[in-house]
């Protein structure tokens, strides 16, 4: 179970996702991720919740669609307070 916070994941849709938060539930990782621009210099507004699974030694990520699961994740992967 790797810590992927503050890392960029490149997925098969050729998009790069920056991991904002990570939660582990039943030994599976869930992420709050945001797409980054192609030059990987800025964050976009495309935020999503991703669920990591492993099949045949390959890692897959799926958007979380279950509303209750989303609620649970959002409850615990809270948005940080503005500190600036």
């Amino acid at each position, binding site marked *: 179970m790797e810590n992927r*916070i503050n890392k960029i*994941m490149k997925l098969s849709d050729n998009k790069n996702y920056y991991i904002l938060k990570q939660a582990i539930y*039943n030994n599976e990782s869930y992420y709050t991720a945001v797409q*980054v621009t192609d030059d990987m210099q800025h964050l976009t507004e495309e935020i999503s919740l991703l669920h990591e699974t492993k099949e045949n030694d390959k890692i897959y990520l*799926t*958007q979380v669609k279950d*509303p209750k699961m989303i*609620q649970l994740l959002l*409850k615990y992967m809270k948005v940080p307070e503005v500190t600036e």
Partner: protein
Amino acid sequence: MNTEKQLQDSNKLLKELMSRLNPGDSDEDKQKQEEIEEVKKSIEEYEDEIEKLKKKIDNKDNYKRHNDDLGQNTVIDEVLKETITKEIETIQTFIQQCRKGQETETKKLKEYNSNRETLDEEIKYIEQRLIKDELAKKSNIAKGIHLQQEEINNLRKEIDYRNNSIEKIDKVMELSAEKIRQYGQNITESYNRLTALKKREQNLVESSKEELINKEKSIDIYALRIDKDKLSKLEYVLKTLKNRLQVLMYNPYEEIKKQIAENEKVLSSNNELEEKQSNESVTLEKVEDKKEENSVEVDPSGVKEPKKEDVDLNLFINKLFQETEAPKATEKVEAEEKQVEHKLEHPDENIIKALRKNAEKLELLDVQAAPENLKKEKLSSMFINKWNNWTKKVTAATIELVYDVADKISGKKNELPEVEQSFKDNLNIDGDKEELYKVLKNEGEYTSVNLNDGEQVYIKYGDKQENVPEGVTVRYDGNDMYIYYSKVKGKNR
């Protein structure tokens, strides 16, 4: 320049000397040469003539000798001999003159040769000087070229240096432009943040005002209701007490005695007194009726015979209040607050549609560390606001998907589902070095924490996020209060 002038002067002088040295080059030299040639020719002519005359004389001598041999000696020979002798003398004189002239010319030639040697020397000297001058000139030119080359090199170096400076300036300008862009971005972000903060402040003020008004209203209504309840209870208590008092004070025998006495007095008086007596009897009946009424009111409620403690008004009131305790005002306010909290935004249709679609499974191709600027941007107020808005919209959409309309209106099921224990155990929210500090489970519990700046604060069960210091996060899960910290030092004391 001086060298060139000297060179020109030297050339002129050299030309002059060359012209002098070359006989054919000047008229005077030609004339002298011609004269010398003429003298030479004259000398040769005279010498030829002398030779001829000598031969002639020799011939004549031979002839004389022959004649002498023959024995002939004549006067004619003598005259001829004299003439010839004179002529020979004349020729000899002429020859001497010619020789003198030749000597003179030879001397002149010698002088001329001497002059020529001198001139040759001068020419050599001038040539040497010219060569030296030329060499010096060449040397100077070479030096000049060298100096110019050095100057060119220096200029090139300076150009390179200036080019480097220009490049550096360009870089500095680029950096400055980047900084200016960053500053502009920061200003924009700050402005957006300020605008958002102002908006938030305004919203907070408005919501606070509204909340305050609602609270005041609810408190007023609640207080009024309590007052009314109290009043009705007091009225009821007063009424009961009055009844009890009347019951307690009622003594029928004394009343009858008094009445008989009065009746006796009244019987002896006039009709008016009789009427008066009849009125008093009505009152009595009423009192008796009242007694019955009291017994009807009190007994059905199960009130026993009055005891001493029942007579104590305060105790009685307290008892009544204990029996009919009203809900606490704070609970009501909290319930209202919960309702306000659950007033969600209108859910975003696009998010709902996206959530209804099947999830696409994407393969992870690569993982790499994010650049520092993304980490900074993540914590910027602008992005946090976007993130916050997204969270609200998604939450609203999930509620739209999970609960029906009636539930949403009542707010009954708007509370998030209970967290499973396994989730709590497994959950890792260490994204920003936030650690669980303590869990408070009951009303009245509190804990103290030491912040990094040395401040010690107390946090009690029930405190909300806006009331705890920066660096500490509180979350509620059902009844439990979780305290997280990121800037706390030391341990719970």
